[in-house]
């Protein structure tokens, strides 16, 4: 177990909007040690991006309310003033964003934007920062970085831009790298390269990674531990092995069912979860997934707690169904609806 970098205890985030109070994150807790990768999975609106942004202190505003603690190397980032937060951002916590096309300033050269980050935290002169930038670009696999460093963003392809973003995020070798759906906007072949790059750099920079995505397949091999979020809550948490081979939450089965698998017979149609994510303002009663859960029954009217209901201690879920019933019925969802028409 590496040094404990980040400890989030019962984090919840509320936003006051015209239509009412939105409970974006409700009681999220997890720990992150150096060298480990934490995957956070969930549909859009599940609060995963809000979590990432809150860690970086980017969701602060007059209409935001925060609860719980975010201990980073002992200090609670929620209490840190915005001015001091600037020393953490980029230096201690690096972040990559979803859409590389718009995340870089179009009128600045790539090298300048990366060097800017370096000079913001390190006492380095321009020439030193430029050398470091070229080295970083080389590390993230950008061909002949000496000349490409002076290109503008629109001269880079999508994948290359994401690599530049990664270089920027890691430029001050932060302890924690937060990747907010870094692959969603890229096509599949590039996605794999980016994931592989993140994992390799994690080891090179000896940092921890929080990898946020809505696609379980992306973090199948990189993540050590996975959290599944739904409607702002953690509905299942466990090691990669637990989630992939012993999922306890019908929602997780749905997610697993929607991944095209090579190691299984090709289903006629991938499983789709009916309906759409619930509103965070007047959320459904009891288990938030109840309206869309095929196995819902009357007990689901009260919200189940996040508890360890299976043999392996670290594996928690939030579902009343009997564990055996679950192990028996989950395959029809996970392996797709080839068996009978939906």
């Amino acid at each position, binding site marked *: 177990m590496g040094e404990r970098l980040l400890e989030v205890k019962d984090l919840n985030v509320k936003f006051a909007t015209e239509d009412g109070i939105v409970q974006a994150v409700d009681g999220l807790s997890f720990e992150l040690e150096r060298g480990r990768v934490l995957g956070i999975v969930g549909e859009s609106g599940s609060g995963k991006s809000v979590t990432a942004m809150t860690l*970086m202190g*980017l969701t602060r505003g007059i209409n935001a309310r925060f609860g719980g603690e975010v201990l980073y190397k002992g200090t609670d980032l929620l209490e840190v003033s*915005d*001015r001091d937060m*600037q*020393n*953490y*951002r*980029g*230096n201690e916590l*690096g*972040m990559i*964003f979803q*859409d590389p096309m*718009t*995340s*870089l*300033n*179009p*009128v*600045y050269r790539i090298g300048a934007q990366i060097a*800017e*980050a370096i000079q*913001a*935290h390190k006492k380095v002169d321009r020439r030193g920062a430029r050398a470091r930038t070229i080295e970083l670009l080389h590390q993230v696999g950008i061909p002949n970085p000496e000349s490409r460093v002076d290109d*503008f963003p*629109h001269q880079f392809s999508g994948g290359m831009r994401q690599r530049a*973003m990664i270089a*920027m*995020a890691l430029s001050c070798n932060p302890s924690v790298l937060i990747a907010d759906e870094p692959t969603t906007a890229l096509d599949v072949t590039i996605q794999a390269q980016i994931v592989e790059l993140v994992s390799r750099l994690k080891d090179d920079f000896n940092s921890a990674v929080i990898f946020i995505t809505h696609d379980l397949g992306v973090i199948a091999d990189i993540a050590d531990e996975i959290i599944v979020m739904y409607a702002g809550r953690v509905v299942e948490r466990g090691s990669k092995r637990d989630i992939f081979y012993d999922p306890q939450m019908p929602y997780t089965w749905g997610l697993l069912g929607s991944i095209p698998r090579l190691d299984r017979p090709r289903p006629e149609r991938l499983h789709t979860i009916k309906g759409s994510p619930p509103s965070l303002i007047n959320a459904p009663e009891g288990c938030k997934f109840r309206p869309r859960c095929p196995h819902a029954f009357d007990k689901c009217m009260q919200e189940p707690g996040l508890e360890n209901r299976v043999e392996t201690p670290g594996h928690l879920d939030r579902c009343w169904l009997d564990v055996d019933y679950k192990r028996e019925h989950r395959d029809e969802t996970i392996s797709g609806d080839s068996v009978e028409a939906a």
Partner: protein
Amino acid sequence: MVAYIIRRIFGMLLVLLAVSFIVYFIFIVIPGGDPAQRIAGKVATQANILAIRQKLGLDRSFIVQWYDLVKALFTAKLVSYSNQTNVVGQIKQGLPATFSLAIGAGIIWFGFGVLVGTISAVTAGRISDRAITALALIGISMPVAWLGLILRFFLAGDGGSGVSWFPDGSYVPLTSNPAQWFYHLILPWFTLAVLFIGFYGRVLRSNILDTINEDFVRTAKAKGLSTHRILVKHVLRASLIPIVTLFGLDFASVLGGGAIITETVYNLHGVGWYAAQSIQSEDLPPLMGVTLFGAMFIVVFSLLVDIAYAYLDPRIRLS
């Protein structure tokens, strides 16, 4: 890039020729403005009116007259009908006043415009934003002529209000007395700049508010840059680009003697004032000269603005 510029210059010459044609056409419409009669003076006989008309070449065809006029203008030999003074010479005499007014006012309205726009954007929604927006709107709604008169009445000379912090219009050459030059131009600068400060402020404010929501600003924050640095290096840089184009064109029109009313109200004997004079007496040559002078600035600056735009925003290729 060079090919582009050459093509644009060719376009410019075309526009200038067309402008000179239109000015000439407008003034053929005036009846009774026959300059020959006016020059002939009180006891002119029919004979010498014809002689003058010949001397000025007014009896030849429309096209030939226009061609002569434009050729004379470009060879700086064009002479005004009413008082035989050289048009290009008079325009040159007006340059110091017009340039001082334009450059001074330009600096003020660009500077304050950016300042006002940034403040009201950064403090969006709060009192300062509302106050600045209100002032900006009032600034835009002021008729320049009236504003000039009121300022001159309340603040200048012994306009009657007893208060005389500023001199009562007129231009003092920079070379002869820089302090007086500055002192005499404060009011005209302000009068001219008020309209633009308000306008630029509001355009910049809406640009900044758009840019602040862009993703790359969030990236900049995530990099741990200070808010000040983000505002200046990223937000302002991106949102100032449209302002540059606006400024280019407005500054060109004022430099070309466009601030006719300000120059007339404050009696700055600049190019604009000279234009107003020549229009009053329906004197075609000076008007042709001043209009082309103004149009030249506008077309040249619109080219400069396009080049600046391409330089500022690398995404734009000069086709």
